[in-house]
């Protein structure tokens, strides 16, 4: 297949995600509400009750990068796993029967999903800014959007890989609860990761979302516990690995 067809395939799948996204306004509002509740309520509650070890009050801006990371995770994982719905409602057959490369179909789906994830992440970033969270610089914000993109691609690849293997949409609920909650809770989105006990530290460091959240924290707030270069390296490797896996498993998928 030539490059033009490949690009058109990716664009077509992206376009479809965009049209669907623009028609699901209630879903967008729902997706924004959860992290904002966390930010406002947990943020206020935490800062009135806790002090960070080593001095200083807990700042609610600490939560913002974590919640942006969380919404990117939810949106992109959902975007990948939505293939299950495509199969359930039949549209998957339409894609599988088209004379196009499956890999570029998966890639287009991923780029579409990651765009919606980034839109949600950016909206949360903007709303957080309105409620008084300070970002260090404009360039930091742009870099933050880049981080959303890379980690979004990774999680979408994971979602596509899972969706390609799950037989029914019943399995989907289970995967979501066994995957999303641990990923979010073990990412350092809600607590500093500097002084964790050993077992928790291992789990947190094994979690790719940790590096996404830390990278966002670095670019948005100017400080992170894990080195930014390590974060970027892990995220890039994770994304390439996951999108390759997702593309490969999707290629073998049967309608």
């Amino acid at each position, binding site marked *: 297949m030539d490059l033009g067809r490949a690009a058109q395939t990716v664009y077509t799948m992206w376009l479809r995600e965009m049209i669907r996204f623009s028609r699901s306004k209630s879903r967008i509002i729902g997706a924004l509400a959860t992290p904002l509740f966390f930010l406002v309520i947990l943020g206020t509650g935490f800062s009135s009750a806790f002090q960070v070890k080593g001095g200083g009050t807990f700042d609610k801006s600490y939560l913002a990068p974590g919640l942006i990371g969380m919404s990117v995770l939810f949106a992109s994982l959902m975007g990948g796993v939505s293939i299950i719905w495509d199969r359930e409602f039949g549209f*998957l057959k339409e894609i599988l029967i088209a*004379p196009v490369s499956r890999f570029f179909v998966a890639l287009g789906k991923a780029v579409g999903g990651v765009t919606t994830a980034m839109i949600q992440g950016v909206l949360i970033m903007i709303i957080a800014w309105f409620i008084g969270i300070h970002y260090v610089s404009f360039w930091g914000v742009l870099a933050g959007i880049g981080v959303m993109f890379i980690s979004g691609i990774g999680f979408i690849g994971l979602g596509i890989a899972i969706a390609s293997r799950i037989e029914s949409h019943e399995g989907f609920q289970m995967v979501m609860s066994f995957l999303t909650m641990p990923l979010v809770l073990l990412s350092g989105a809600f607590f500093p990761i500097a002084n964790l006990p050993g077992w928790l530290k291992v789990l947190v460091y094994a979690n790719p979302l940790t590096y996404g959240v830390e990278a966002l924290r670095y670019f948005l707030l100017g400080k992170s516990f894990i080195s930014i270069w390590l974060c970027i390296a892990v995220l890039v490797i994770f994304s390439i690995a996951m999108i390759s896996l997702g593309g490969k498993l999707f290629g073998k998928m049967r309608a």
Partner: protein
Amino acid sequence: MLYAIETSGITKRFEEVTAVNNISISVRPGELFGLLGPNGAGKTTLINMLSTMIEPSGGSALVWGHDVVKEADLVRQNIGVVFQDTTLDDRLTGRENLDLHGRLYGLDGKTRKNRTQDVLSLVELTERADVIVKTYSGGMMRRLEIARGLMHHPHVLFLDEPTLGLDPQTRLHIWDYIHKLNREQGVTILLTTHYMEEADRLCDRIAIIDYGQIVALDTPQELKNMLGGDVITLELEDPEDVGKLCSSYQKDGCVNMVTGKQNEVFITVNNGERQIPHILALSSHAGIPILSVSLRKPTLDDVFIHYTGRAIRDKEVSGMEEVGYKIRSRRK
């Protein structure tokens, strides 16, 4: 290229069952070919293999000159498929569904626009084109799906049970479109159905398929002719007259076969409706009063029974019983 579709000994085995068993068919370009059989006969499996959705376990098939396994992409470019269940994106409008399809098949913007207009008007959906598909009725969705299958000018169109679950009026409509497509646009069509009437009305040739094998293949007319003609049933007032009437018909030679039973006479003839006046004239000439006359044309149902030993509905019923049995045994 002599044939639009040519299979030789194509076979598909799933773990325990052989869904399609050594089927060889040749469909000419421009032909409207029907696969008739009960649910579970292997029709959909055959279409899935021909449309590159699944790979055969044995044998081979060429669609528009391309091998379905080795040249799957070329096959895909040349075919349109309308599956049994909807494969539309119901969150998009009809037009968007068509447009995305055109993009996936590499049509440029101008071609997409023109094609969209053409296929929409063909299935008479132009006015509802910009409405979300979710609000469509079952018949509209099927029409849109046929339209979409035609977007990229396929040479061969596969229709899997195109009127399943539609009301009679919509069914007639869809038959019209299929007919029009085949006659006016010259699209080769392979359709599966378990409706006798559908196969009879639409198809140039029919393959009756049962347990994964072809049991008969010919034009609907020839299939029916093989049964020996139409059956006219005469009901007489007096059973005594039956023998006399039978022999007078035999002597006349206008009938293929005649039998009597109680007060009824069964006559097998060609062109039954044209023979009725003559048959009645003979009886009144013989002075035998007739209470009623009925004419029955052999249907594909009769053909099906002839070849498989049962009506096409029988198997479905037993299929349902099987499901019921499975549910019951699971509860235990």
